[in-house]
């Protein structure tokens, strides 16, 4: 097990290095590179620019600059926002809570609903329910999330007036009920795609399991059907879902960004778009690197967790 973890950790670190190199390359792709904020100001003369270039160490060779930048990233120095001079990491962390709240709620809905649909679809394969669920999942995966958000706002906020059309809370009202009221629409919109994914994966995992010999043996022993389902089938079918959770993470994060833009949810995605609008490159880069690192850690944890619950993996 220790060897497996060490192996995976080494892979994750190698990936982190490549990810950071890609991030660094994008940073230098910006018009004017890291200097763009100064170049945009009319008061800066070429002399000033040269001085800043030297000060920031931008006259050094790219590999040296990269190592310096990567080192500062590791130490937690992610630069400062152009907008208000606040440290990038603290800007991100102040918006992280809202995003995590949205993602967690949507994931809980998606996992429960998706697994239920998937299991039922597998047990009653090719039934009307299964057909509708399969077709429905495909349509859910094809609807643009932001447009679905707009339609939700139109129906439930504009027409019916049941739900607020955006934001995380009513100003001046800090009650839990108010928070939940604001959470419903964006969480459901984000959960749509996730539910469809979980349903599809759960269905195929369940189909894989219920034709196995040990299920037949359990039936032959006269074990009650519900026990076969829960103890034997579901337990094994849920295993690959750990990997699915890891793989789904980037999609979930991207989906959160989309849902946040439509519902003006004050999370990381909203911050990302605002920062793009203000050409606040340090924050844009910070969020890009932060989300990639989160994905990396997520898939690393999924691998480790899978190995813990399924010993077959560690050997292979």
């Amino acid at each position: 097990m220790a060897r497996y973890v060490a192996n995976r950790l080494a892979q994750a670190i190698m990936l982190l290095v490549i990810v950071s190199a890609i991030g660094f390359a994008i940073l230098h792709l910006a018009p004017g590179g890291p200097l763009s904020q100064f170049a945009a100001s009319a008061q800066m003369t070429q002399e000033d620019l040269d001085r800043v270039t030297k000060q920031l160490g931008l006259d050094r060779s790219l590999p040296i600059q990269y190592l310096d930048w990567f080192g500062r990233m590791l130490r937690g120095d992610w630069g400062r926002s152009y907008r208000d001079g606040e440290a990038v990491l603290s800007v991100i962390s102040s918006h992280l809570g809202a995003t995590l709240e949205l993602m967690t709620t949507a994931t809980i809905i998606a996992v429960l609903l998706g697994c239920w649909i998937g299991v039922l679809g597998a047990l009653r394969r090719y039934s009307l329910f299964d057909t509708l669920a399969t077709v429905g999942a495909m349509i859910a995966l094809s609807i643009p999330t932001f447009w679905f958000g707009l339609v939700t706002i139109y129906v439930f906020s504009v027409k019916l007036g049941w739900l607020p059309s955006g934001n995380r809370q009513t100003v001046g009202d800090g009650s839990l009920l108010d928070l939940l009221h604001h959470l419903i629409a964006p969480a459901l919109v984000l959960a749509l795609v996730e539910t469809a994914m979980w349903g599809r994966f759960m269905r195929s995992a369940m189909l894989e399991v219920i034709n196995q010999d040990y299920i037949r043996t359990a039936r032959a022993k006269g074990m009650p059907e519900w026990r076969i389902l829960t103890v034997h089938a579901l337990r094994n079918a849920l295993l690959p879902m750990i990997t699915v959770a890891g793989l789904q993470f980037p999609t979930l994060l991207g989906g959160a960004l989309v849902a946040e833009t439509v519902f003006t949810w004050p999370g990381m995605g909203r911050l990302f778009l605002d920062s793009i609008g203000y050409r606040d490159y340090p924050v844009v880069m910070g969020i890009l690197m932060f989300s990639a690192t989160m994905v990396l850690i997520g898939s690393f944890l999924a691998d480790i967790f899978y190995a813990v619950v399924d010993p077959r993996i560690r050997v292979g």
Partner: protein
Amino acid sequence: MTSAALPTVPLAPGQAAWRRFRRHRLALAGAVIILLLILGSAFGPYLLPFDDTYIDIMKRFAPPFSGAHILGTDELGRDVLARLMMGGRVSLSIGIVAMVIAMAVGIAVGAFAGFYGGVVGAVLMRLVDAVLCFPTIFLLLALAALTEPGPVTTTVLIAATAWMAVARVVEAQVRSLREREFAVAALAFGSSNLRIMFRELVPNAIAPIVVAATLNVAKAILLESYVSYLGYGIQPPAASWGNMLNNAQIYLTSAPWLAIAPGLAITLAVTSFNFLGDGLRDALDPRMNIP
């Protein structure tokens, strides 16, 4: 049909695939809808009396099915149907061209990584893994914000964020096909590595490649709609399905049709490509039958 009526002569692979595909009614419907959308976008604008960029401020916010404008007009009095068709040209072309570029890059990377394996393969595939760490939309928006917006940039950027899945598929295929007799035979004939890769191995992996390509178009159309919706893709006055939704949120209360028409067009196109891809997967390789 009874089993006795079934043909006993084995069908040619192409024929068998067509039979399986035909049975997939949703895929067939998808193919028909895609054809209609392409024809409608290509020739529809010539049949309409309105130009997609013609501004008629007196007729702004005309609701659909009321008078000359079938789908109504937008905030500047432009005909929504005309914009939908012209937008279709842009969105569908971007989807297809981005797919072609992504396939070219993905197939090249996957073929080299799968064929050479070892260090080359490991480095290329770790690069694929690393790019996949970035949530696609974040990466696409960051790149779009750093570059000059326009149809070409948008297409290239979408391709740049969509080639990795193809590379993975091709790499796995090439790696396993490399050991097969026909590949070894080609090597014995003295064929060059490049020839073996692209004349022998890749054509034999065509089934999963075609499926990946179809699904890739769906993904590219979705991505284009999103960047354009946010204003970093296709720039007005040119229409795209995404940028038609640009102002839709502001007028959601007074003119909901502005949001509904382009959104339905995107959903229809993406759903059709996804069903088509699903049907092709069932038809071309029954063993890959993943639900």
